[in-house]
C-alpha cells in the first residue's frame, strides 16, 4: 500500500465541491482512500484518523488544500493525483472563466446593484462576520452554515430586526422566496399558503404535500432550528409571522418547529392572536393543551398541517384520512407482507436523511409501539447505547453530527444510509425498513437509484434466510423537482419497495405491520 499527501497552497474550494471530487476519485480501481480538504483544524483531525497527517499538513492553513491518497501502488497514486488536479481545473473552468467573481461584498453589490439577499454557507466560524456585513449592506440573509454560537445568532437576529431585514438561520437549510427555492428546497406551485419554518425537511414535506393537493406556496421563511429556544426567543419566527400577515398574496399561514421552550411557545401563540389570517401551528410532538383557547389551529404532524392549510386555502373542510389508499388495499398489503416473514423477524429499522421526517415518523410509531430507540430519541430511555448498532425498533436521523463527521450529509451523498442498510440487512430480526427520499435542489441527483440498489440487496439477504424485508418509503418531492419524481418512485417500486404518498402514511403503514407481527 502506498500513500502520498500533496498540499496546494492558497487554493480555496468549498467542501461540497471537494467531497464530490474525492468521491469520484475514490471509486477508481486500486484506490483505498482519498481525502481532498482545506487544511482546517477539523480536517487535520480527519486526516490523522486515516493516517494521512504529515508535519507539512500540520503547518498548513485553512486557505491551503490537502490532497491525501492511499492506493495499491505509486502508479495508482500518480494516476489519482492527476485525475484530482484535472477535476479541480475542470470545476473552475466549468464555472466560466468569462464570469466575473468579485472578492468582496462591496464589489458584488456594485456588479449586482439590485441584489436583495445573501445566501451564506461558509464554514461556521467565519459565517457570522459575513452575515453581519451583508445585513449592514441592507441585504436579507439566509445563513445555511451551522456551528454558529447562539450569542452570534442573537446578535445577528437583533441587528436584522433593527434593520427590518430577514435573518434566516444560522443552520437554515430551506427557504422559498418569491417562488424561488433556496438551498435545500423543492420546486412547488405558487399559491397563497405561507410558511415560517424552524425545520428544513419539515418545510419540504409540508410544501410538497400542499403542491400535490393542487394548492400552492407564497413564501417559506426559514428561521434555523434554534430560533424557538429560550436564548433566541423566536425572534425570526415572530418577524416571519408578521411579514406573512401583512403580505397580500398569503391567505393561510403555517408555523412549523420542533417543540419550543414553553415560554417561547406561549409567546408565539400570543402573537398568533393578533393575526387576522388563519394560522396552523405544528410544534412537532408539542402538547395539544397549549392550544386550548388559542386562535392557532393545532396540527399533530406535518401531513396534517399541510392538509389543513390546503383545506383552508380551498375553502374546504379538513378531514382526517389515515391512508390515501382504500382500507381494503392497505389490509391486502399488510397481509401480503406478514405472510412472507420468518419466525425471527419482528423489528423495524427507520433510516432517515431528514431529521424532522424522522421525528414525525417516531411520533406516529410511538403511538402504537412500546419503544423506539434512536440517536434523537423521543424519551431519554430510548437513547441507543451505541448509535452504530440498532436495538429492537430503531429510527435514525443519519443527518446528525455523529454520522456526518468527515462525510457529506446523506441527502447529498446516499452512502451513509446505504452502508447502514447493508448492516441492518445482516440482522435476521429485522422485518421492516422505513425511509425517506428527499428530492429538490440541494439533494443528490438520484437518491432513489442508490437506495433502490441497497434495498434490493437487503431483500435478497432476507430471502436467502427464508424471510422477507418490507421496505416502506415516501418520496418528498414534486414533479417539477430536478430529479424527476415519477422516475424516482418507479426505481423504488421496481426494487420491491412500497412507496406511500407521505412520510406520515409510510410511518402508519410500518406501524400497522410491525404491530401485527408482534400480535
Amino acid at each position, binding site marked *: 500500500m502506498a500513500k502520498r499527501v500533496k498540499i496546494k497552497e492558497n487554493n480555496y474550494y468549498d467542501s461540497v465541491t471537494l467531497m464530490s471530487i474525492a468521491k469520484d476519485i475514490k471509486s477508481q480501481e486500486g484506490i483505498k482512500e482519498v481525502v481532498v480538504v482545506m487544511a482546517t483544524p477539523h480536517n487535520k483531525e480527519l486526516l490523522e484518523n486515516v493516517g494521512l497527517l504529515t508535519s507539512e499538513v500540520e503547518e498548513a492553513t485553512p486557505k491551503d488544500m490537502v490532497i491525501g491518497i492511499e492506493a495499491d501502488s505509486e502508479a495508482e497514486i500518480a494516476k489519482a493525483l492527476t485525475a484530482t488536479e484535472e477535476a479541480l481545473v475542470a470545476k473552475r473552468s466549468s464555472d466560466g472563466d468569462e464570469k466575473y467573481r468579485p472578492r468582496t461584498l462591496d464589489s458584488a453589490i456594485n456588479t449586482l446593484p439590485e441584489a436583495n439577499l445573501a445566501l451564506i454557507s461558509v464554514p461556521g466560524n467565519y459565517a457570522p462576520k459575513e452575515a453581519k456585513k451583508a445585513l449592514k449592506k441592507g441585504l436579507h440573509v439566509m445563513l445555511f452554515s451551522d456551528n454558529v454560537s447562539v450569542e452570534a445568532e442573537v446578535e445577528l437576529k437583533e441587528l436584522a430586526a433593527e434593520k427590518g431585514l430577514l435573518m434566516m438561520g444560522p443552520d437554515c437549510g430551506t427557504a422559498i422566496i418569491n417562488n424561488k427555492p433556496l438551498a435545500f428546497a423543492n420546486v412547488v406551485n405558487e399559491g397563497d399558503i405561507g410558511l415560517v419554518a424552524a425545520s428544513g425537511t419539515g418545510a419540504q414535506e409540508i410544501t410538497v404535500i400542499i403542491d400535490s393537493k393542487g394548492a400552492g406556496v407564497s413564501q417559506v421563511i426559514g428561521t434555523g432550528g434554534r430560533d424557538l429556544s429560550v436564548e433566541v426567543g423566536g425572534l425570526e419566527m415572530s418577524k416571519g409571522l408578521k411579514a406573512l400577515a401583512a403580505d397580500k398574496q398569503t391567505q393561510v399561514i403555517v408555523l412549523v418547529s420542533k417543540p419550543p421552550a414553553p415560554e417561547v411557545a406561549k409567546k408565539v401563540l400570543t402573537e398568533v392572536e393578533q393575526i387576522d389570517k388563519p394560522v396552523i401551528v405544528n410544534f412537532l410532538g408539542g402538547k395539544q393543551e397549549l392550544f386550548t383557547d388559542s386562535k392557532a389551529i393545532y396540527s399533530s404532524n406535518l401531513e396534517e398541517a399541510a392538509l389543513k392549510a390546503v383545506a383552508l386555502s380551498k375553502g374546504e373542510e379538513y378531514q382526517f384520512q389515515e391512508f390515501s389508499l382504500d382500507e381494503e388495499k392497505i389490509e391486502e398489503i399488510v397481509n401480503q407482507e406478514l405472510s412472507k416473514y420468518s419466525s425471527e423477524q419482528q423489528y423495524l429499522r427507520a433510516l432517515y436523511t431528514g431529521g424532522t421526517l424522522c421525528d414525525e415518523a417516531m411520533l406516529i410509531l410511538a403511538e402504537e409501539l412500546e419503544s423506539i430507540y434512536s440517536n434523537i430519541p423521543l424519551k431519554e430511555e430510548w437513547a441507543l447505547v451505541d448509535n452504530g448498532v440498532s436495538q429492537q425498533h430503531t429510527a435514525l436521523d443519519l443527518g446528525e453530527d455523529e454520522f456526518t463527521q468527515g462525510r457529506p450529509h446523506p441527502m447529498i451523498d446516499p452512502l451513509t444510509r446505504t452502508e447502514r442498510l447493508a448492516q441492518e440487512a445482516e440482522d435476521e430480526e429485522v422485518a421492516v425498513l422505513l425511509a425517506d427520499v428527499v428530492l429538490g*435542489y440541494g439533494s443528490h441527483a438520484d437518491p432513489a437509484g442508490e437506495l433502490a440498489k441497497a434495498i434490493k440487496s437487503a431483500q435478497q439477504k432476507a430471502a436467502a434466510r427464508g424471510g422477507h424485508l418490507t421496505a416502506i418509503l415516501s418520496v418528498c418531492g414534486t414533479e417539477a423537482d430536478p430529479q424527476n419524481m415519477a422516475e424516482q418512485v418507479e426505481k423504488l417500486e421496481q426494487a420491491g419497495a412500497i412507496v406511500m404518498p407521505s412520510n406520515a402514511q409510510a410511518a402508519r403503514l410500518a406501524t400497522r405491520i410491525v404491530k401485527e407481527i408482534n400480535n
Partner: protein
Amino acid sequence: MSKKVLELFQKELQVVNIGLESFAENLQEEEVEVIQLDWEPPAGGDEELASILDSLMD
C-alpha cells in the same frame, strides 16, 4: 414594520452567494440573478488575526 421584507416579496429575487457554489448553480437553473463571491478564509486562515481585523472594521 416588515416594510423591507414586504418589498423583498414584491421584487425579483437577486442573490449574492457566499460559499457552496452548487447553491448558485441551482439558483441559475431557476433563472435567479446570482453572483458568486470568490470567498476564502480571511487573513490566510489565521483566526486570531482575522478577529483583530474584524474588530478594526467595526
